[in-house]
Structures are given as C-alpha cells and as structure tokens.
C-alpha cells in the first residue's frame, strides 16, 4: 500500500472518516506518521477551545479575586485553589465519574406548563466532558497569572484615567485590561503550552476513546503496544508536539508584539518560555 493511499485512509481517522480498522500487522512508518498526525486534531481542538473560553473566564475570575466584595472574592479564591491544588489527572477521573452518575435518559426540568428534558449523555464523551475539565483547569491557572498582573498594573495609569473622568467598565477596558495583558502575556504563553501538553492526558484518564478515535498519544501508545517498539511511535508524537509548540510560541509572540506595539522594540518584554515558573 502506497503512502498516499495510507494518507487517504487514515488522515482523518481520529474524527471518524476513512478506514475503520486500524493497522494491525506489518505496520509501516507511513501509517504511524499519518495516524499519529491525525490524532493531533484532537489535541488542537481541546487546546484551542479551552484556551479561548478559559481566557474569558480567567479574566472575570481575576477581576473577581481583586474585588472588595467578599462574596465574589472568596468563591473565586476557593475555585482557583481547588483546580490548582489538585492534579489534572484526578480532575479528569473525578469529572468523568460525576458526569457518569447523571441519569442516562436526561434530567427532566418541570416548568409548570411544559417539561424540558436536559440531555446528559454527551457529558461523558471526551469531546465535551474533557473539554469542560480543561477549560475549568486552565481558567484557574490563567486567572492566577492575570490576578498577579492586575496587582502589578501601575497605580498612576489608573489615577490618570480617573482624572480624565473614566470609571467602571471603560476604565477597565481601555486602561487596566491592556496593561494587564501586556504584563501577563509571557507567562500566559507558558500556560497555553502547558495546557496543550495537558491535552494528552484525556484519553489516558477516565474518558474512553470511542471507536478508537483518540488523540496523538493514544495512537502512539497503540503502535507501541502493537509493535512492542517504543523507539518509533513516541518520537513521532514528540516531534509533532515540538512543531505545534513552536507554532504556539510564534502565534503568542506575534500577539505579544502587537500588545507592545507602542513600546520601543528594544524595551519590549521578550517571551521567555520558563516551564518551571508556571504550574
């Protein structure tokens, strides 16, 4: 079988298109490269959606943690402690069991004149359940970064804006938030990379890979078990992750440049990937 044929068969296998049966005997290098690459679709899906939604929620959380209102501050503090203090792996297991406990048929919500049935079975699927966990997890870590940056916003900027008559939301949107992002961005890049790497845990925790539709590491593990040779499939997966990580750094670097476009390039804070400072 030619490599082009393999590509046609397996390039989208992870999302259910192409040949159903995975290669079992005489596994070629091409099959491994294509199938593991196809699994990267899931890693990208989880990472992109979780980062986008997590960014919004984390901003709200950071503001809540800096608020004077104890009813906003305390719950968000506890939320961050809960998700930063426990392993993501255990969070996946716990969430899966929690979702699995919900009634299969759905939850009936009586509204008096009619009854709405809330479907619940989709929550036990990886595409939704794992995404929720990743979203909540990255929100907690990102909000810690944003909260630190929020406290580091120079007081003078805010005072000057007040003198101009700005207050409330417009002050936040036009003054505090841009500065906050600028300060937080290098650390936030690290968080995005960590989250991306965390997506590999999904199919090794409670969530089952339905019809063998899994992520890159799921297929790499599959090949390692089938061929009993770890020296080919894991390095392929590692290479994919290195390429994607470089892409993330390039994308976030471009955003960083844009955030600092008014600052002298020589003084612009460089994104330094320091993995130890983040989780």
């Amino acid at each position: 079988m030619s490599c082009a044929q393999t590509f046609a068969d397996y390039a989208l296998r992870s999302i259910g298109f192409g040949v159903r049966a995975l290669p079992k005997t005489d596994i070629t290098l091409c099959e491994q490269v294509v199938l593991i690459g196809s699994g990267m679709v899931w890693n990208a899906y989880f990472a992109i959606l979780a980062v986008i939604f997590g960014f919004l929620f984390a901003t709200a959380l950071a503001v809540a943690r800096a608020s004077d209102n104890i009813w906003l501050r305390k719950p968000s503090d506890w939320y961050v402690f809960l998700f930063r203090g426990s392993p993501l792996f255990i969070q996946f297991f716990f969430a899966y069991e929690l979702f699995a406990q919900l009634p299969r048929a759905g939850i009936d919500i009586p509204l008096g004149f009619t009854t709405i049935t809330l479907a619940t079975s989709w929550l036990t699927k990886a595409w939704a359940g794992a995404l929720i966990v990743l979203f909540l997890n990255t929100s907690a870590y990102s909000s810690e970064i944003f909260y630190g940056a929020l406290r580091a916003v120079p007081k003078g900027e805010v005072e000057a804006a007040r003198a101009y008559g700005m207050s409330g939301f417009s002050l936040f949107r036009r003054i505090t938030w841009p500065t906050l992002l600028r300060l937080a961005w290098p650390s936030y890049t690290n968080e995005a990379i960590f989250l991306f790497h965390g997506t590999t845990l999904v199919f090794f925790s409670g969530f089952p890979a339905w019809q063998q539709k899994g992520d890159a590491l799921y297929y790499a593990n599959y090949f390692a078990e089938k061929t009993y040779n770890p020296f080919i499939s894991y390095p392929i997966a590692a290479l994919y992750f290195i390429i994607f990580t470089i892409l993330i750094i390039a994308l976030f670097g471009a955003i960083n440049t844009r955030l600092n476009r008014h600052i002298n390039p020589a003084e612009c804070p460089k994104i330094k990937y320091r993995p130890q400072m983040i989780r």
Partner: protein
Amino acid sequence: MCSDPSLLEGWQWLWCYLSTPKHQQFYASFLVVFAVLIVTAPVTMILGFAGALARRSAFLPLRCFGIVYTSMIRGVPEIIFFLFVPIALDQLVEFIRHRIKCPEITDPIYQGADFVVCMAAKMPLGSSPQWAHGLWGFTLAVIAFSIVYGAFAANTLHGALNAVPQNQLETARAFGMSERQIFRRIHLPQMWTYALPGLSNLWMILIKATPLLFLLGIEDIVYWAKELGGAKTSYFAYPHPDWRLWYFLALLVFYLSLTRVSEVVFKSLTARVSKGQSLLGQATAS
C-alpha cells in the same frame, strides 16, 4: 464484629467495609505516593544540578548536552516521557543482558510484533518472586520521573545561578578566591533565594504528577480507587453501587491537603533563606 457483613448496618457496616484487607492495601498505597516523592526529589535535584552545571560548562559537547536536556521538556509533554522511558529502559537493559548472557543466539530482537530475548536475559527473571517485578516497575517509574523533573530542576537552577548579581562574584574574585571557592562560598549560597520559588513550584508539580504512576502500571492510589470504587454485586461481602466518584473525591481532598501543607512550609522556608539579603521584591518572592 466484622465476621458477618450481611448483618451489619449503618456506621458499623461502613467501619467494617473500610477496614477490609483490600482497603488496607488502598491505605498502604498512599505510602507509595510518599515513597515516590521521597526517592524522586533528591535524584531530581542531583540531575538538576548536573544539567545546570553541564549547561554552564566550558566544554562544548557537555554544554550542548545540557542545552538539549534542559530544553527537551519544553516542547514535549511529560506524559510521552513517562510512557516512553520505562519501556525503553526495560528493553535496553534486556537487550544488553541478552548480548552478554546468550551471545550464541543471533536472531533479531524485534520479530514482527514481538521483542524476543532469551529467558536468562529477562528483567526481572521469570522465576523471581512477585515483589521483584513490582520493585523493578517502581524503579523504572522513579527513573522516568527523575529524568523529566530533573530537566525542570536544571532549568530553575540554571536561571537561579544566572540571577546572582555579578558584582558579588567580582568582589570575591578581587579577594583572590579561586573559581571553586567562589562557587562554593558565594555563588551557591546566594543562589538558593532565587531558586526557591522555582523549586517550590517544582515540588508542587511533582506532587501533582504522582497519580501518573497509574499509567506505568503501578498499583497506586488511582488503581485502588478504580478497583474498590467499582460497583460490587451481591456476590461480594460488601455489595455497593458504583462509588468511584467518592473514592476520587477522597483522592482530590488528599492532594489538596498535600499541596496546601507544602505551600505553607515553602512560604516559611522562603522567608528563612532570604533573611539578610537585600532584595527589593522580598515580599513578592513566593
């Protein structure tokens, strides 16, 4: 009291249920978590120091090795290493033993979907007791952990060594200290202030990585939580529905308290090592 579980009720039932031999194994597996932490942390520090020093070495190949070692965890998820290192090491050891113990067999090692070595090269030997297999698996897991987190530590220590003010070292040089003396008396003691935030973070990462032992086939707390929590039919002495949710809740609480305690300890430690150092951001170094 617990001789006939079917007669028990309420708290008594729960007490007897929680003290079954299987549950005692579950409690013992919490010790595995601590054992991994206690064994891994020093090895990680040693590898971290080696990595950081290699990166600063004047000898080019050694420096290249240091750079590769400290950068490898940046682009690749650690889970890949956890899956790869134990099985790769296992095969490497068996391959070497195969070459030494049975040189007369020249068949290829990889035969189709099999990894074939002679019986005498198996690690541990097929005839060795169960605990030997467990110990070997545990050793491989600890090595994998140490290699990965050693790279993290090397990053932290390298950064901390660079963060020590240059004029401190220059002053020492002016006093006529040798490079070795400077490193031992000036550079190293001052480095700790800068390294501690990173190291405390690394300790947290290490704690939160311990459930990944489950992926390496070790009977750790995750294994037992899955095993004990699963629904038990009336065939068992203590039948119950699916309770995995509660077992994982217990693990969640365990990890939360562990990280909380570590956080408090590190806070006081940070205050102690930065005593007597004139640093502006003293209060923020946490």
